[in-house]
């Protein structure tokens, strides 16, 4: 997987039109600048609205505290970590950080290496749990990038992740990953894994 941009297609939710976008195999300064300049104010505005409407905290975006500037600095220079970004209309629409030092847990592939998705987040205006998303397909584009990296690393498409509760149906239903249930060793978040066969089906 080259670090250069590769084309991906998103969907404009309001018109249904295809939106050309690019996938970067890195998180650069421009993405952190977008996060600071666009994502954070949009998220703060959303949180203020949820607070004003007395929406229970359980329905607030669970990734609201994620600091992408810090997460990007943490992986600098380390071979095990990779960052990805989806850009459309000149603005970062989604970010992902993966770790290549993890092993699979499903009995059929236990102990074999996989691409572990540590963090995956779409821009606040693309979140379907907050409002009508501006662009659809950002999460799928990033999961596709994780599967592609897994194939490139000889991991046969295997990926794994712990899901925030708000994203569980995406990984289970849209991505077709196996649900291994809550992980008591990791905040009780449900752990999901994709096998080589599931990866092939997902990429179809």
């Amino acid at each position: 997987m080259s670090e250069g941009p590769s084309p991906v297609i998103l969907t404009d939710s309001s018109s249904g039109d295809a939106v050309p976008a690019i996938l970067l195999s890195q998180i650069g300064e421009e993405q952190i600048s977008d996060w600071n300049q666009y994502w954070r104010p949009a998220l703060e505005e959303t949180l203020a609205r949820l607070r004003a409407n007395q929406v229970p905290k359980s329905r607030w975006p669970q990734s609201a505290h994620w600091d992408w500037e810090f997460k990007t600095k943490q992986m600098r220079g380390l071979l095990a970590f990779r960052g990805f970004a989806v850009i459309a209309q000149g603005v970062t629409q989604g970010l992902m950080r993966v770790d290549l030092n993890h092993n699979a847990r499903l009995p059929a592939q236990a102990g074999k290496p996989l691409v572990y998705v540590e963090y995956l987040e779409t821009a606040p205006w693309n979140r379907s749990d907050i409002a009508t998303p501006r662009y659809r397909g950002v999460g799928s584009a990033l999961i596709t990038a994780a599967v592609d990296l897994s194939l490139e690393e000889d991991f046969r498409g295997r990926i794994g992740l712990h899901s925030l509760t708000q994203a569980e149906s995406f990984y289970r239903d849209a991505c077709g990953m196996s649900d291994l249930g809550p992980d008591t060793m990791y905040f009780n978040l449900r752990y999901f894994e994709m096998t080589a066969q599931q990866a092939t089906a997902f990429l179809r």
Partner: protein
Amino acid sequence: MTLNLSEAEMQALDELSVKKDLSKTAVLRQALRLYQTIEARLELGHKLFIEDTLQNDKSELMLL
């Protein structure tokens, strides 16, 4: 780059390649990633432990 391995090292590489379902190159890349990650954590003052939950045994792994 040429990598010279002893017979025993080559055998270990072969076994890991089969066990992990990886090419030999991929095994070595994975080993390098893991080694670098551990070194980076140790440099931060972290410690590496090996835990046997069945025996309730936990020991620190000393790395030079």
